[in-house]
C-alpha cells in the first residue's frame, strides 16, 4: 500500500502529534508519498506563524522531511491525471468540517485528494466529513 500524506497530516508530523508519530514507526519509508502541493501549503502556513522560534523549528522539520522523502522519490507532482480529477472535485461540495459552522475543503487540499485518487494512493488524514463523499477515495486516519 502506498500512502499520501494530507497537508494537515504533514503539519501534524512536523508538530510531533503523537498519533502521527506512532504511525510513522509502523510504515516503510518507501511507501510514503507527499504532494508538492502539500509542501507549498505547509510552507505558506508556517509563514503565517507569529512565533519566530516555532516557525524556524517547523521550517527545519519540513526541510528534513522533504530530504528524507526525496531519497525514496516520495515527492509527487500535481500532474495532468491529477488535474483532471481535481476539476471534478472542484464541482463537489466537500466538507472539511460540518455542523453549525461548516467549512469546505480548500482548492489546494482538493489537489492533494485528486493526486491520491489519480495515483491510487491511500490518503493519510484525520477523519473528515468529505472522505465518505468522494467515491473510490481510500483513507487511513492514524
Amino acid at each position: 500500500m502506498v500512502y499520501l500524506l494530507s497537508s494537515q497530516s504533514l503539519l501534524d508530523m512536523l508538530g510531533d502529534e503523537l498519533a502521527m508519530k506512532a504511525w510513522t514507526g509502523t510504515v516503510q519509508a518507501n511507501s510514503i508519498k507527499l504532494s508538492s502541493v502539500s509542501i507549498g501549503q505547509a510552507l505558506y502556513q508556517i509563514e503565517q506563524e507569529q512565533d519566530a522560534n516555532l516557525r524556524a523549528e517547523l521550517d527545519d522539520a519540513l526541510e528534513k522531511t522533504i530530504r528524507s522523502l526525496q531519497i525514496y522519490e516520495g515527492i509527487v507532482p500535481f500532474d495532468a491525471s491529477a488535474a483532471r480529477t481535481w476539476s471534478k472535485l472542484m464541482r463537489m461540495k466537500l466538507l472539511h468540517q460540518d455542523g453549525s459552522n461548516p467549512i469546505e475543503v480548500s482548492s489546494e487540499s482538493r489537489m492533494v485528494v485528486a493526486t491520491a485518487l489519480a495515483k491510487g494512493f491511500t490518503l493519510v488524514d484525520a477523519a473528515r466529513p468529505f472522505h465518505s463523499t468522494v467515491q473510490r477515495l481510500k483513507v487511513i486516519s492514524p
Partner: protein
Amino acid sequence: MVMKLGFLTALQDLPVQDNSELEKALAELLISHLFDQPLTVRKARDNFSSVNRLARQGNLQIIKGAPGEETVILSVKDLAAIIKAAVREMTFAEALDVSGFKPARQRIELTEGLRVGHDLALNVKKVKSKQIEASAAL
C-alpha cells in the same frame, strides 16, 4: 558474483537508533561474513591485487583498525546492494531520524475553506452553481 543474500537480509536487523551500537553490530556482521580473516595493513598492501580481485568478486575485505575505524574494501555493485537493502526496509520514522529530523514543539493547523480571490482562476459563482452531489463519478 554479488554479495550473499544472508548478509543483505541481516543488514535490515541492525540497530540503527544508536550510532555506536550500529558500528559495533555492523563490524560483527561484516566479520562474520568475511571470506577470510580481517587483514593487517601490511598484508593488504603486500597482496593488494588479490584483495582487490576478491572484493570485485563479492567478497568484501576488512583492514584491521581501532573499533569503528576498520576500513572496508568492496565493489560499487556491492555497495549499491547494501544501500538498496538498507534503504528499502527502513520505517518512515527511522528515515526521519537518520536525516536529523526534530519535530517542532507545537503543531499548527492548516487553514481550510474555499476563499474567493484565492482560488486558482475560478469563477466562484459558476462553480457554486455547478456543485454536484456526493455520488458524482470521478
